[in-house]
């Protein structure tokens, strides 16, 4: 009964928020008339006018690859983590950076494992988020999730991280269900010079080096090496855990201009790491370790055909090896991707492409481990094509975007993932967008082929599973009423079908309890995400992110599953982050981030408030010394757990996030 009430009020609230948005908009229009329009355009170009010819010749220009798009033109809930955000966050890894994004749930399970998702369904095995780095897929087809402990690079070489909440399946393919994270590293042309970075504190130590240079007129390269070690955190009971973590990696990137219209990128990484964990089995706590290694090689050729047309062809090879207490996995992936974009009659911007993806694994079952795979080796293939048209109407004030992806995979056959989007530029400073899209999550290798034997429960994967389906309705508003203020608001309603469940086979009175994976749950999620920037002065800027999220999952009639609805309902209802970036002096920066994360009632994790501080001193333009404090408000707090307090603990043991201090020195030469 209570659920129905909250559901009803939730729907009302959503309706109310939509109405409020509309009222707000019409008010906005009357308060800030169209004058803002011209100011904005000339502001951009006068920046350009102010540059001398020497300066102009030093500005990097975007080489056309994927369709270049301005942030304000995207008909989706987009958030961009810039180089400046990265530098001033004091973060030492990618998951920590993602905490500033509204609508993402980031929680640390132990010192080397995270639960990260967009718009709910969070967990260690979150499976509805697509993560890419420079066009290479980072999630593992093993469970459609990301092993965050092996995703890293030199953070100073990241150009930006683009995060889209909501489906992006039309462009990006299956599994881009609830969101996409694109980590984009800088071109080798932009990182000339050397960088030495050393950091040490009570929780971690890090050393990194990069060297980049030009070769002749047309080519640049860079090399990097990075190694770090993180200390053990503590269990919820307070005792020291076994989740220490070490990682080493090297990599390179080369960018070559083959001609005025052709460019080639070649990049690769090699890594190797060990991450510890504690597991409980039959009430016995033991310390275990994951050993991970891998490498990848990617090449991308882009040809510019005209100022609004281009081709891109990309190929990569990726190998990952992981051995831990449950399995030993060796995986090789090949991926070929082609894209072509062009304009027709100045009104249609078309983009189409195809992709071939092949992944093969060899999974050795560990003795006494609860997980076994049958078959132990499997090659899986996906091929797909997509087309999308962006139609400019009413003198470019309205864009209608229609497209679909057609994808074939070995598990469920053909899947179609269409979307329709519109963005309406109410003025140069304000735009409103809306989208309806369909996305699917195809079954993973685990969903299809696993057997989990954890007495008295025996769970079988199901090769006959169908895809989990989502139809998402989204709407958003972006506005920059003044140079110093911008607001980005997004609301969504997600309708899920055929979500995975554990169904009882046989009688429930005999042991073992046998369950098989099936698709018998549906539900909906809705929420609101807000990002705002306020430049109080040139030297003091504020950035706010807020997200409100609700999820209701229900198993279908006839389903015997009693856990899945709670299992996936593990996202905070409210999340808030407030960052302040302050330049105390020309050579002194003080940055503060405050995060509030609501309780996770299904996991008995209480709400928490955390504070990070960074004080950076630029001794010379080449040298930066910074003092960073993280989670300063308490000694330690838990962020996530694999089980709720009452459940029998079996498996991975979560740890707490501890207060930490770090001194970091960076020298560019």
């Amino acid at each position, binding site marked *: 009964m209570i659920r129905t009430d909250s559901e009803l009020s939730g729907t009302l609230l959503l309706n109310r928020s939509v109405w409020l948005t509309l009222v707000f908009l019409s008010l906005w229009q009357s308060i800030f008339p169209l004058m803002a329009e011209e100011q904005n355009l000339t502001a951009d170009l006068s920046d350009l006018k102010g540059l001398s010819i020497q300066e*102009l010749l030093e500005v990097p220009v975007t080489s056309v690859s994927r369709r270049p798009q301005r942030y304000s033109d995207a008909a989706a809930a987009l958030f961009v983590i810039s180089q400046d955000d990265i530098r001033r966050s004091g973060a030492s890894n990618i998951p920590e950076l993602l905490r500033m994004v509204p609508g993402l749930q980031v929680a640390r399970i132990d010192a080397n494992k995270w639960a990260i998702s967009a718009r709910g369904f969070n967990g260690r095995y979150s499976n509805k988020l697509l993560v890419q780095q420079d066009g290479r897929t980072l999630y593992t087809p093993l469970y459609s999730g990301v092993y965050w402990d092996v995703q890293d690079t030199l953070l100073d070489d990241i150009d930006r991280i683009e995060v889209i909440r909501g489906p992006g399946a039309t462009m990006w393919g299956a599994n881009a269900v609830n969101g996409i994270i694109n980590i984009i590293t800088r071109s080798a042309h932009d990182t000339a010079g050397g960088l030495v970075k050393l950091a040490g504190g009570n929780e971690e130590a890090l050393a990194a080096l990069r060297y980049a240079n030009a070769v002749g007129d047309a080519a640049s390269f860079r090399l990097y090496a990075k190694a770090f070690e993180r200390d053990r955190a503590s269990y919820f009971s307070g005792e020291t855990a076994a989740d220490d973590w070490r990682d080493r990696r090297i990599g390179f990137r080369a960018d070559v201009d083959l001609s005025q219209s052709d460019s080639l990128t070649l990049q690769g990484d090699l890594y190797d790491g060990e991450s510890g964990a504690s597991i409980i089995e039959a009430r016995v706590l033991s310390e275990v370790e994951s050993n991970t290694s891998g490498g990848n090689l990617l090449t991308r050729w882009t040809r510019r055909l005209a*100022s609004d047309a281009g081709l891109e062809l990309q190929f990569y090879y990726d190998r990952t090896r992981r051995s831990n207490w449950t399995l030993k996995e060796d995986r090789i992936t090949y991926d070929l991707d082609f894209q072509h974009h062009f304009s027709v009659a100045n009104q249609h911007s078309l983009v189409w492409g195809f992709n071939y993806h092949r992944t093969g694994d060899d999974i050795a079952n560990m003795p006494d481990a609860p997980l076994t795979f049958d078959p132990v080796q499997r090659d899986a293939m996906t091929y797909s094509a997509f087309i999308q048209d962006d139609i400019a109407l009413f003198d470019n004030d309205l864009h209608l975007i229609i497209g679909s992806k057609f994808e074939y995979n070995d598990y469920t056959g053909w899947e179609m993932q269409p979307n329709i989007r519109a963005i309406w530029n109410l003025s140069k400073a304000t735009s409103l967008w809306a989208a309806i899209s369909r996305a699917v999550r195809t079954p993973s290798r685990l969903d299809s082929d696993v057997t989990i034997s954890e007495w008295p429960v025996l769970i079988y994967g199901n090769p006959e599973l169908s895809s989990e389906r989502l139809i998402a309705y989204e709407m958003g508003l972006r506005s920059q009423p003044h140079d110093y203020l911008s607001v980005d608001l997004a609301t969504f309603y997600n309708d899920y079908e055929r979500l995975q469940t554990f169904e009882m086979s046989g009688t429930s009175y005999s042991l073992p309890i046998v369950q098989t994976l099936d698709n018998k749950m549906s539900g909906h999620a809705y929420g609101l995400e807000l990002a705002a920037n306020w430049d109080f002065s040139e030297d003091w800027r504020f950035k706010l992110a807020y997200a409100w999220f609700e999820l209701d999952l229900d198993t279908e009639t006839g389903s015997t599953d009693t856990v899945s609805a709670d299992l996936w309902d593990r996202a905070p209802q409210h999340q808030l982050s407030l960052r302040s970036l302050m330049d105390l002096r020309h050579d002194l920066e003080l940055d503060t981030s405050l995060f509030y994360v609501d309780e996770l009632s299904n996991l008995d994790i209480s709400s928490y408030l955390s504070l990070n501080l960074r004080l950076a001193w630029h001794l010379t333009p080449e040298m930066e010394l910074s003092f960073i404090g993280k989670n300063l408000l308490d000694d330690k707090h838990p962020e996530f757990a694999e089980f709720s307090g009452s459940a029998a603990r079996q498996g991975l043991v979560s740890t707490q996030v501890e207060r930490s201090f770090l001194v970091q020195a960076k020298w560019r030469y």
Partner: protein
Amino acid sequence: MSWFAAGLICTVLLAHVPVSPGRDLPEHQIKAAVLFNFAAFVSWPESLFETPLSPLRYCVVGADALHETLNHLISGERLEGRPMELLNLDEESSLDACHILFLGGAADYDKLAVMGLKPGILTVGDSESFIEQGGMIALLRKRKRIHPVINLDALDQSRLRLSSKLLHLATLVRPGSNE
């Protein structure tokens, strides 16, 4: 970890180069701004202007996006009292009225007969072949930056003078002489 150590050593041993920060901007915007700036570095014979206050005229062929940006950049601007103007060209227009002519990748050089233009027009293009066909300045993309290449042969044959400041920033070539 021998490969790791090797990578570390490689990275440390290499020498040094200055750093360049900055955000990426669309190529056509930078080229438009460079064209806007060029006017100050070129001197035209007085005879190419009707009066001391008659406009300095830009023409852009085969580059719509650049045309649009340049239009915004020059609006209301003057150079030594001359207003700047961007001509709207069609198939039949004569290029003789132009002072600065930009021929983009989409322009058909043969048809435009770069060589046959009036000698007082500063011709700017964006490819190496533009220089080979007698164009004066090519704005080429080099390691993600725009870099001017100046054809001294074409310049000698024209009645234009370029300031030494511009010549210093550019690569100078003489495609006519066989080196």
